[in-house]
């Protein structure tokens, strides 16, 4: 005869506790605010995302929040069946979300260092690509505290070294802070809040993924659960003691498909693959990874520091910098060259010039990283494809920062990495290992040479510039008209099952990560992989961009979800989006132009919508005429909404984006429309943040070409 309280009773009691807490929170804010008081999290188009996803309710006022609380109660049924446990568990998460929302009433900012609370839509969307590529194998949320700070830090670092995104709820965040861990979205450690209800912000990320990438409709209770169960690799680590209220949250987590690993043996019940009692917390990480079946990208590289994509977001401050190579000040570059097989000695790593110990702390250096590859199936077009990866590969080294490309790179080696024994040959090891593992199908041999000698690097730079110029010329010659094949890309179908990208020379994938050359290389590497060849064939309308072969491809690869896609129009059958697009454009009715917003831009736009709100109009493989997700580099393409007037339609962009693409866009506008300095006539937030009339005045003053075009609608 078991004497402990049953698991189901613990969940039911815990859900009652969370409900009572939510009631108190509502009562407290109701004492100060009336029912019409607005309720909102910042920077999201998904309202209170858990409640929105599970019920379709938007909860925009305190009054509506009260109704949702009543709904939570109605869900907390207590029959002795798992269905009741799942419903109660999800209602517990919803009640937690209500508690959290109350904290934000009246525009309050309830969270401060080290906690972040609610995660913005932009941050969620940013996770799309790495989740799809497996660069983030999953998420883990730690709840409570390990017996010691060291143990908590160990667990966090261990996840980080495997590129798993870690959320921290409760005391563990304080422990990590005491240990001096860097914690933010960029390094994939996200302290959420001190109190248990803040775990709602983690659930919110999972359900938003379902709506953003999966196109699951808000209110599709079963659909959301199925999406998270099938596609969101998340797990929970709950440190003892685990009270009923946490068990109830665990019930919700398990309902969504996220297993819970705990070291609490008292009054706990094991459930296979769902609730796992692991008394040894040093095994938490491996236990959780196995429980959720997270697939790690194993990269064994012989270097003295950790190597994981989680370190890509790491910043090395000047004060912590051992040595820096800055291409804008001292000649530095990176280059990938195709050689004959006889010219390359596999895994030969050479350092020419001084090594790191010969530089003073904080000093500058010259640096050229030259990777030479050979293989029977190699093509010259793959050189830039590989080379563009160097940034991500070098950046994933713990304690090393890399920005820029070609001869404008900037590389910093941190003091800690240096002291751990990191030297120049380790750049070689990393580049060698990554080229061989990512491109093993085409690379038979690879050698790396690192140069620091100023004279040699200077010479190399001149040679490299020649190569870069030739490549640019080749790229310019690559137009939609000049090639005979396009490519389809379904890399993100694991997340967004009905989306298909068609990648052409003049239109890269909307995530910004897959150019026509990338797609071609991906196809060459694996003929049955995510990128497939789409023989262009004849178009039936080359203005709008209709190719019967393209339609066939999208029908086939979207499993019939999509029938037609045009390549050059945002009005007629625009290309769909998965949700991880870099930018979104949408029609601005007053001027008849389009507003383009990049993911990083948080504030309002003249459309009366933020990026998040615009983004929520599309995504998940849905076609919404007038809105389209795309990559940044598509903006300057001659094919950018060519059927609808082209880039002459662009009336507003955030300044940062304008700066980024301005040069190329101006060039395109000059060629297409004979306009000089076109970007000067495009509005930005310094002209107006959200006023379409003010924007129209600006456009008129600057004689913007859109004013001469036919209205789009």
């Amino acid at each position, binding site marked *: *005869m*078991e*004497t402990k309280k*049953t*698991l*189901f009773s613990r969940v039911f009691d815990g859900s009652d506790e969370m409900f009572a807490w939510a009631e108190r929170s509502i009562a407290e804010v109701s004492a100060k605010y009336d029912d019409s008081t607005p309720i909102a999290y910042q920077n999201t188009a998904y309202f209170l995302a858990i409640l929105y996803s599970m019920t379709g309710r938007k909860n925009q006022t305190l009054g509506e929040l009260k109704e949702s609380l009543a709904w939570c109660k109605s869900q907390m049924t207590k029959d*002795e*069946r*798992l*269905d009741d*446990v*799942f419903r109660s568990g999800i209602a517990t998460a919803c009640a937690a979300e209500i508690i959290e929302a109350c904290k934000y009433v009246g525009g309050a900012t309830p969270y401060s260092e080290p906690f972040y609370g609610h995660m913005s839509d932009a941050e969620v969307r940013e996770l799309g690509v790495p989740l799809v590529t497996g660069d983030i194998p999953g998420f883990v949320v730690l709840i409570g505290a390990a017996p010691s700070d060291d143990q908590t830090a160990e667990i966090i670092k261990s996840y980080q070294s495997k590129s798993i995104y870690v959320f921290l709820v409760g005391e563990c965040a304080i422990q990590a802070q005491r240990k001096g861990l860097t914690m933010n979205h960029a390094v994939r450690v996200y302290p959420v809040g001190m109190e248990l209800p803040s775990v709602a912000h983690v659930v919110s990320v999972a359900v938003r993924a379902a709506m953003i990438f999966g196109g699951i409709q808000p209110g599709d209770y*079963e659909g959301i659960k*199925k999406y998270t*169960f099938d596609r969101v690799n998340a797990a929970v680590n709950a440190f003892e003691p685990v009270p009923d209220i946490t068990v109830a949250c665990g019930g919700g987590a398990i*309902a969504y498909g996220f297993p819970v690993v705990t070291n609490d043996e008292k009054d706990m*019940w*094991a*459930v*296979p*693959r*769902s*609730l*796992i*009692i*692991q008394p040894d917390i040093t*095994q938490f990480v*491996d*236990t959780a990874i*196995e*429980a959720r079946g997270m697939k790690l990208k194993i990269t064994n590289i012989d270097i003295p520091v950790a190597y994981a994509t989680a370190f890509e977001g790491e910043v090395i401050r000047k004060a912590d910098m051992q040595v820096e190579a800055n291409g804008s000040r001292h000649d530095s570059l990176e280059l990938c060259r195709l050689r004959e097989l006889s010219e390359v000695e596999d895994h030969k790593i050479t350092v020419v010039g001084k090594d790191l110990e010969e530089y003073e702390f904080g000093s500058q250096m010259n640096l050229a990283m030259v990777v030479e590859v050979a293989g029977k199936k190699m093509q010259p077009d793959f050189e830039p494809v590989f080379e563009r990866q160097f940034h991500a590969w070098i950046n994933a080294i713990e304690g090393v920062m890399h920005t820029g490309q070609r001869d404008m790179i900037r590389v910093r080696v941190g003091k800690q990495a240096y002291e751990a024994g990191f030297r120049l040959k380790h750049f070689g090891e990393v580049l060698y290992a990554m080229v061989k593992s990512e491109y093993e199908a085409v690379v038979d041999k690879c050698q790396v040479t690192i140069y620091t000698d100023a004279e040699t690097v200077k010479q190399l730079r001149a040679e490299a510039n020649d190569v870069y110029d030739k490549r640019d010329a080749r790229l310019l010659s690559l137009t939609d008209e000049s090639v005979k094949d396009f490519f389809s890309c379904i890399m993100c179908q694991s997340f967004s099952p009905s989306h298909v990208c068609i990648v052409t020379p003049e239109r890269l994938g909307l995530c910004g990560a897959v150019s026509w050359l990338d797609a071609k290389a991906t196809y060459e590497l694996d003929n049955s992989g995510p990128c497939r060849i789409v023989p262009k064939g004849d178009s039936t309308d080359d203005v709008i961009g209709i190719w019967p072969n393209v339609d066939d491809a999208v029908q086939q690869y979207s499993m019939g979800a999509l029938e037609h896609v045009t390549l050059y129009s945002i009005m007629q059958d625009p290309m769909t989006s998965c949700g991880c697009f870099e930018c979104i454009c949408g029609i601005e009715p007053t001027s008849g132009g389009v507003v383009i917003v990049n993911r990083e831009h948080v504030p309002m736009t003249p459309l009366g919508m933020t990026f998040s709100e615009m983004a929520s109009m599309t995504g998940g493989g849905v076609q919404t005429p007038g809105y389209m997700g795309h990559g940044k580099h598509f903006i300057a393409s001659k094919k950018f909404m060519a059927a609808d007037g082209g880039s002459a339609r662009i009336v507003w962009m955030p300044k940062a984006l304008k700066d980024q693409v301005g040069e190329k866009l101006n060039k395109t506008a000059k060629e297409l429309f004979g306009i000089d300095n076109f970007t000067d006539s495009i509005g930005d937030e310094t002209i107006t943040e959200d006023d379409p009339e003010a924007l129209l005045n600006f456009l008129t003053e600057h004689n913007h070409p859109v004013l001469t075009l036919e209205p789009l609608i």
Partner: protein
Amino acid sequence: MADVKKFTTVEELEADTTKLYERACELCADTWQQRAEAQKNHCKFGEGGICCKNCSMGPCRITPKAPKGICGADAHAIAARNYLRMICAGTSSHSDHAREILHVLHETKPEGPYIVRDEQKLIRLAREWDVAVDNRDIYSIAHEVAEKGLEEFGKSFGEMRFPSRAIESQQAIWRREGIWPRAIDREVVTSLHMTHMGNSADPEALIRQGMRTALSHGWGGSMLGTEITDILFGTPTVWETEGNLGVLENDLVNIVVHGHDPVFSEAIVTAAESKEILDYAKSKNIKGINVVGLCCTANEIAMRHGVRMVGNFLQQENAILTGAVEMMCVDIQCIFPALPQLAQCFHTKFVTSSPIARIPGADYVEFNPSTASEQAKLLVKQAIDNFEYRDTSKVWIPESKQTAVVGYPTEQIIKHLDAITNSHVDEIGSYRPAVDAIKAGVLRGAVAIVGCNNPRVRPDFSHYEIIKTLLKNDILVVATGCAAQLATKTGLMRKEAKFECGAGLRRVCDLMDIPPVLHMGACVDISRMMLLANGIARDWGINLDQIPVVGCAPEWMSEKAVSIANYVVSTGLDVYLGIEPQVNGSSQMMEWITEGTRKLTGGGFIINTDPEQLVKNIIDGIEAKRKALGI
């Protein structure tokens, strides 16, 4: 909700049956529906088990006016004796089947026709029985194991081996109650002796002997049948197959294999796949040969070859009534003597193969293991030759069929359980994950749904209703025999049937990648279910009568079923029956089978002829067991 192909309802099954029945009437053919009508109303003395024909002073029938037979035997004695004789017949059936298979094992040789396919299982069994295995030829081991197995039938001294596979607490109960079986033949003979005129009249003694005899079946003949069949033909694995009359094909030669013993049907399946036969078919411009199974033969070959299942017990005439069957080959048990006559209404050849089941009007080809291949090829050729005589104007094949995932013996279940363990905390090769899921409440328990069809009730209806209700209540179903076939043909054995389940069972199906109704085999394979229950109790560390696992036979009809039900309760598990055993003429016997056995072994019958009520009884019973465990 996911887009799930619809399930086939009992009404749809019945519509096909009705249409076939109407065709039978047009042909003036005789079918079970007419015969069942003609047999109404059944003899009350027979139903109550109170007619004694054990000597020629009688028959004696018990009435209020004549409460005793001529010898003085009362209703209790007569009902108990008749009941024990049913157990004997049931035990004999599966056990004699096992004996035949042991003889086949004894005749195995490397060049065939019968070989050892699961050597590991043979070696495990050899070790269990202290047969030397090291440095020894596998066939030499096989032959000695066969001899040891045959000893289980009639050993002079000692007792049976397999009961010591049970957990110790159960063995202790069998010892305490004196029902550990000695040998199969011994228990049957003893029973027949006890029921002879002038012997036992004490219901308790007869019940106890019934339990001992039944144990020689469940933990003897049946278990031998299963083990040796696995050794000979391979331990079943997961197959995707199809079920129901729609598996018959309009443009192929249809051969239906029917019965229980796979020795014959395996040979037919192999022959039909041989190049010689395929070439022969080609020479006759025939596209192919479609071998399908019926009754438990279907279960056997479906879980070893994925062969499709045409139907269960009460569909045996339906198969012939399609007019599309070139040949029906039968072996043993549950074969209607009506079939040869029905086959004569069509071109269908009806072939019997076993001296155990001789039926007038059939072509009798006594099947001999040593000439199996040649005999099977000859028969398949005859079926091919018969194709041209098919009268297409008489053909109507119902479209209805469903896919099913079959083949979950205990070994396979363990594999799926291993897949949901976590290597950092769990051990593999145990039922522990299932135990944890039950203890936590995710699964409420498990029910073994077994047994036949019976025209006394609406055929297949109770199986369907009970299974569906159990699934909704997070109760895993394991099924064998005709119950398993019902799940097959309705679609409940598809993995998509998880959408018919409560959240708990559905999650288990998702994680384990299984359908919610697990196909464990033929009726002889209920021994597998005993090992499953035993393993769960062992890995839980409690007694068999404590685990929330029970048996249910909603539509049982055969004497085998009576014996099976008795070995299941003797193993400590409750059995829920939808048909009343024929003892209700004795209040004492009714008390014995429902409550009396429970006092001995912890298991008893719960009888309810209303399926809706019966399934409630099951759920209540499972929840009561949970409550007693504090879970």
